[in-house]
């Protein structure tokens, strides 16, 4: 897992009370002079080129920046953690708070823009637990970041908390995305409830973004079961109404379902509900549970070994596919997924989050398989096994982690 943020940095040349500054990194020694002021040079070798607006170096090679004068802003980052930084990335430096975060990585296939940590749901398995503080300063920060993002970036995900709680500021951000990044697809993660207000939905549609989709979670066909999972009364109705409004305005909607103990039992019925009532959604994403945030606190209520819900998952996928609904499965390892479902499995764990487990050793399908969230080491399936022979459909019979532990204990 990559480290994106740090407080262990050394700063020079920044005003002491400056809240936040975005540094667009460059490794181009031959960058035209006229462009250097607007960039920060990422220094890895001796004798950095002159004329850049700022310099970013590493603490284990600090002497490289000795030649840079004290008034020019420079940052020294902890070496091992930030080796991945490269040309085109954006580092947000917070001089007053003495912190820095990599907010955009050009080479990454998944860039997230966090808009707020406030939320009007409180999901049992929330991977980004909500906070109540006013973090509206993020809005201007994002508006400053957007012009620095490489316009060739294929896709950006807007996330939170609940992004739409920003109201008109959310619309401003989306509009700015369309202005500064006219070739970039936007994926918005939202509970959809704010779109129940048709006025807001119309404002969203009016932006006319060229390629945007809202990913909205729906956890049950039964309203009170959904409300329980998201810990908010009335959430189901607002979410469904939000979906209806968006679709009535021709906007793209994805329905997301996180699979755990509280959602797997009625998964086939939820699939039927979607096929019957929300047939017009653009796609459905069935997702494995992430062991972060609230999930750890609620693990006894949430955990179920994925191998134990394959039946329900197959039935749900059969139902959706039969009705022509585009369906994908995310965050499941191939060895615990029914082979029939492999065509629907997408390799999708963010590249800064994924890992493999000891049980995976020698597996010939690691490339196709998404592996695990790094948080998965807390709890993952007891049935992880490598596929040893090429083309093999059955994982080998190496003992599970549980069995191995039991054996070791004897």
């Amino acid at each position, binding site marked *: 897992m990559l480290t994106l943020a740090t407080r262990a940095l050394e700063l020079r040349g920044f005003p002491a009370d400056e809240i936040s500054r975005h540094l667009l990194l460059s490794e181009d020694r031959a960058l035209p002079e006229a462009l250097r002021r607007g960039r920060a040079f990422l220094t890895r070798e001796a004798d950095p080129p002159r004329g850049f607006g700022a310099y970013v170096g590493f603490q284990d090679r600090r002497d490289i920046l000795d030649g840079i004068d004290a008034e020019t802003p420079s940052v020294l980052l902890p070496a091992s953690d930030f080796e991945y930084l490269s040309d085109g990335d954006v580092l947000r430096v917070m001089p007053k708070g003495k912190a820095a975060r990599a907010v955009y990585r050009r080479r990454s296939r998944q860039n997230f823009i966090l808009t707020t940590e406030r939320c009007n749901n409180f999901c049992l398995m929330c991977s980004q637990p909500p906070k109540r503080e006013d973090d509206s300063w993020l809005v201007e920060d994002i508006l400053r970041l957007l012009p620095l993002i490489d316009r060739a970036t294929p896709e950006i995900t807007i996330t939170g908390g609940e992004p739409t709680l920003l109201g008109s500021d959310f619309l401003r951000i989306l509009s700015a995305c369309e202005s500064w990044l006219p070739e970039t697809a936007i994926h918005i993660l939202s509970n959809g409830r704010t779109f129940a207000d048709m006025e807001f939905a119309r404002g969203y549609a009016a932006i006319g973004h060229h390629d945007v989709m809202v990913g909205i979670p729906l956890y049950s066909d*039964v*309203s009170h079961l959904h409300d*329980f999972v998201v810990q908010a009364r009335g959430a*189901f109705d607002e979410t469904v*109404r939000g979906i209806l409004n968006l679709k009535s305005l021709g906007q793209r909607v994805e329905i997301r379902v996180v699979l755990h103990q509280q959602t797997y039992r009625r998964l086939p019925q939820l699939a039927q*509900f979607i096929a019957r*009532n929300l*047939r017009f959604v653009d796609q459905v994403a069935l997702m494995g549970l992430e062991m972060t945030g609230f999930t750890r606190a609620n693990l006894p209520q949430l955990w179920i070994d994925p191998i134990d819900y394959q039946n329900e998952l197959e039935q749900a996928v059969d139902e959706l596919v*039969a*009705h022509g609904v585009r369906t994908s499965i995310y965050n499941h390892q191939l060895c615990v997924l029914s082979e029939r479902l492999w065509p629907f499995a997408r390799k999708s764990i963010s590249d800064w989050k994924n890992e493999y487990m000891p049980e995976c050793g020698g597996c010939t399908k690691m490339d196709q398989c998404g592996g695990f969230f790094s948080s998965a080491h807390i709890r993952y399936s007891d049935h992880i096994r490598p596929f040893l022979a090429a083309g093999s459909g059955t994982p080998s019979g190496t003992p599970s982690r549980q069995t191995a532990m039991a054996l070791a204990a004897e």
Partner: protein
Amino acid sequence: MSRFGALADYAPALETRYQLLPFRFANLDDGRCLVTNLVGEYVLLARADLEDFVHHRLVPSSPVYDDLKAKHFLVDGDHSVAIDLLVLKARTKASRLAHFTGLHMFVTTLRCEHACPYCQVSRQSEDRAAFDMSEATADRALAMVFRSPSPTIKIEFQGGESALNFGLVRYIVERAEDINRHERRDLAFVIATNLAIVTDEMLHYCREHDILVSTSLDGPADLHNKNRPRAGRDSHERAVDGIRRARAIVGRDRVSALMTTTRDSLGRAEEIVDEYLRQGFAGIFLRPLSPYGFAVKTKSYAAYDADAWLDFYFRGLRYILELNRAGYRFIEHYASLVLGKMLTPFDTGYVDLRSPAGIGIGALIYNYDGEVYASDESRMLAEMGDKSFRLGNVHRDTWEDIMTSEALLGPLEASFTGSAPMCSECAFEPYCGADPVFHHATQGDAVGHKPTSAFCRRNMAIFKHLIGLLEEPETRRILLGWI
């Protein structure tokens, strides 16, 4: 963890008074009840649960409560989104109505070289050119076709043996394509032909103009030839050869076949399915015998009743499911369209299972002489001397005259299942349709007397059977693949 509420905090309280949403029920043979909502979603209940449900005694912890809530049989709390969804679904089911007439059949000629006992039109010899449609008639009929607002128009050539007047087929295709350059509908053509006299040249024309070929295949050779006699006794051989040639020239996915069930077909369901398999078809439509035309004259219709046919149908369906379980994908088309009505938000385009009936507003037929009928069956009835469903003539009447004629509007309204006796309260009504022509032909009345209606008996048995099949997980998975 105190920050999180328990399920009980969100679930409806024990004393919650739920509201009933519109639904109907029917008793199944095993003592259970089937409930269906306005749009045909269903739940199976024990009788006791039904009574509890209606009398507001059902508790939220009951196993059926969640199903009834999710499928919009009840609403609790302030859940007005349930009403929104029901409205959307009802609108979706009815949306085909707005398209109006999509299927337009042209009888290019009554001439035919076969002499099928069940034939629903007059047998005429090959010599009688008086029974061909003229270009003038075709022109006027085409003008009517495009008066329909339907975004999709399917022109189907019928007969007799429609290819015996292939010159007119060409004329109609080209005129229609011409008109469509301006109209821009989704225009499709089908030719219903026994293939016996179809030349390669005709097939090339079909390929060029994307005309689908629909032929007759009643079963293995002996059955097919007995059903469909022609001089030379080679109907089956010619059909099989025609299918091969048509696939080669027009395209393998552009050739379909229909079977007709006769007394001789009963007891041979598996053989008929095997014949379709052998001939490379991906499915079969196991049709009932229609009571029109020569079927009645030659007593083919009286020869068996609905139960004997149902036996035939269920055996065929069972055999087809066995094939599917063994890994061979093969569909029974009638089941497939019923399943579509049961499981999807959409209604079918099949004109014989719609309410309001598909007569006129779903399909129209333009006879060789310019007479316009509400359906193919209406034409067959007319050939037998009963012109009840004759709507007009292209040479004398306007499209408005025809579409607002009492001959059309009367039976449409009378047979509407939403208000017909027994149908209006029937749980299976969302899956069923009105067939005023069938009921008029067999019972003398467009509404029909459903307790004695073969149409009702047949369909209700099929609905119950399919619901039973859907309960078995592996079968459900197969059937889902058919919709």
